[in-house]
């Protein structure tokens, strides 16, 4: 296993292994950093940032579903400046790719954030056009090709680091958005964000989430993620950060075979803080069991019928 080369390259961002933690599930690394050294990770997608501090949605924000969870956290975050001042320096002490995840209310906000974050020295910017929880803009950007392209252009023109655009699965044809974003100059794509879902408390007759609906993540969505990564990989020629339901090395390997250059682990951390490390070790084991030298050889290796 030690023989396997785990390093990958995601749109020019070099990572020592392909396992990233997904935005919003790992904060800025402090909490899970109590369990293990963050250097174990390939990278971190930080909690989604907005231009100004946001308190997020009212609770309850979490509901459990069969092999999944719904969340309606709603982009609670300290704002991009506070991130740069209070979180980034600490993160930079570590050897892992720092990917800032951003959401804006307008294309201009995306631009401003990209400028600040590029200057502050993050390794990559992940442009969230797909957060289903914020009424203003969030959903629309991710479901309309023209808007997605506009945000992408704005982010690109204000960034000096690679820009990765994060796609929503709540669309009829994800390749349409992927193409629009690729044409607009994105350096990479990440997918999938959460599927929209709902759970109702029978006794109170209330939706469990105060926002009524929320984003579904966790193992339940893995097959949708694999399908969409494959479709997007077939449709556009950009590196992909695959995510959605990864809990084990096998899940990650499926996403890589489908076309992902790296994978993110999100919800699985909640059950098991060590999930990202186990996914990494599982990937290494699978790679060597298949007689490969490099984990990156898995990428796009699926042989469709």
């Amino acid at each position, binding site marked *: 296993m030690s023989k396997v080369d785990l390093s990958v390259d995601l749109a020019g961002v070099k990572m020592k292994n392909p396992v990233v933690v997904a935005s*919003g*599930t*790992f*904060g800025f690394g*402090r*909490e*899970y950093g*109590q*369990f293990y050294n963050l250097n174990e990770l390939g990278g971190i997608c930080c*909690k989604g940032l907005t231009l100004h501090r946001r*308190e*997020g*949605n*009212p*609770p*309850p*924000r*979490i*509901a*459990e579903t*069969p*092999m*999944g*969870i719904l*969340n309606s*956290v709603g982009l*609670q975050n300290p704002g991009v400046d506070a991130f740069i001042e209070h979180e980034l320096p600490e993160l930079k002490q570590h050897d892992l790719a720092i990917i800032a995840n951003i959401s804006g209310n307008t294309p201009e906000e995306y631009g401003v954030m990209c400028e600040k974050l590029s200057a502050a020295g993050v390794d990559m910017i992940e442009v969230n056009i797909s957060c289903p929880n914020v009424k203003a803009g969030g959903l629309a950007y991710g479901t309309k090709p023209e808007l997605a392209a506009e945000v992408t252009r704005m982010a690109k023109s204000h960034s000096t680091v690679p820009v990765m655009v994060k796609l929503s699965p709540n669309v009829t044809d994800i390749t349409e958005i992927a193409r629009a974003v690729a044409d607009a100059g994105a350096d990479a794509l990440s997918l999938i964000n959460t599927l929209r879902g709902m759970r109702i408390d029978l006794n109170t007759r209330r939706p*469990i989430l105060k926002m009524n609906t929320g984003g579904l993540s*966790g*193992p339940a969505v893995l097959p949708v993620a694999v399908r969409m990564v494959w479709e997007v990989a077939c449709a556009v020629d950009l590196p992909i950060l695959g995510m959605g339901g990864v809990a084990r090395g096998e899940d990650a390997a499926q996403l890589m075979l489908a076309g992902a250059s790296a994978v993110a682990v999100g*919800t699985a*951390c*909640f*059950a*098991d*803080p*060590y999930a990202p490390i186990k996914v990494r070790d599982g990937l290494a084991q699978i790679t060597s069991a298949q007689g490969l030298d490099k984990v990156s050889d898995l990428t796009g290796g699926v042989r469709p019928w």
Partner: protein
Amino acid sequence: MPIEQICTIVEASKLNEYAYSFTLEVGDMVTRHGLKAGQFLHIACGEGLLLRRPISVCQVEANAPHDTARVVFEVRGEGTHWLAGRQAGEKVNVLGPLGNGFAISTDDRLLLVGGGIGVPPLLGQAVYTAGKATAVLGFRSADRAMLVEDYQDNCAEVYLCSDDGSLGRHGFVDAQLRDILEKDKNFTAVLACGPKPMLKNVAKVAAEFGVPCQVSLEERMACGVGACLGCAVQMADGTMKHVCKDGPVFDAKEVDWNV
């Protein structure tokens, strides 16, 4: 610093039709990681459930080779149902210590107010202050009562209430609390745990009498460690705090009780 610990259940007993008491071997969580009553453990409940379940610690003991922690829980849904089915000798996967317990000192003269499954987490505070505390314990009915003797053994006084009058005083704990404070305001703190409407009332009464009040809150959790921002509670100043990281114990004055 929280750790993941595979804990052997060394004692499992049923307190009443719905409530179970487990004593867990928690490794060095008490001696090394400072686990104390009022903090919580995040317990993995069965293969089919994705999320862990937060359960408060009701008593701890520093022991060799294993510290122990006692948890008491009621069966509410699938997770607690699974947990209730575990036997002494079986193991559960636990994250802890998590959250902050009550801010008290051994000198405090505490007024403990627990409702239902909010009763257990206060027991450790009674023990810690060595018999000086007064406790008000409320239950839906006599058959739901639990830990009454434990409280009697560890408190100066114990008052019992029930919603239906089948045990102790007929009525809610805040009425009992008011009666006590009317006679004696000399408590250093009211500590309360129970359903949110009860906590709201308790906080109000304590405020009226000018006694500092700490409440232990519940919210639906994912990570349990502060990473997901799932377990938000709204504060009076409009900001959000998080039960798992900033709580579960909050100063009652900070909480926005109107949501």
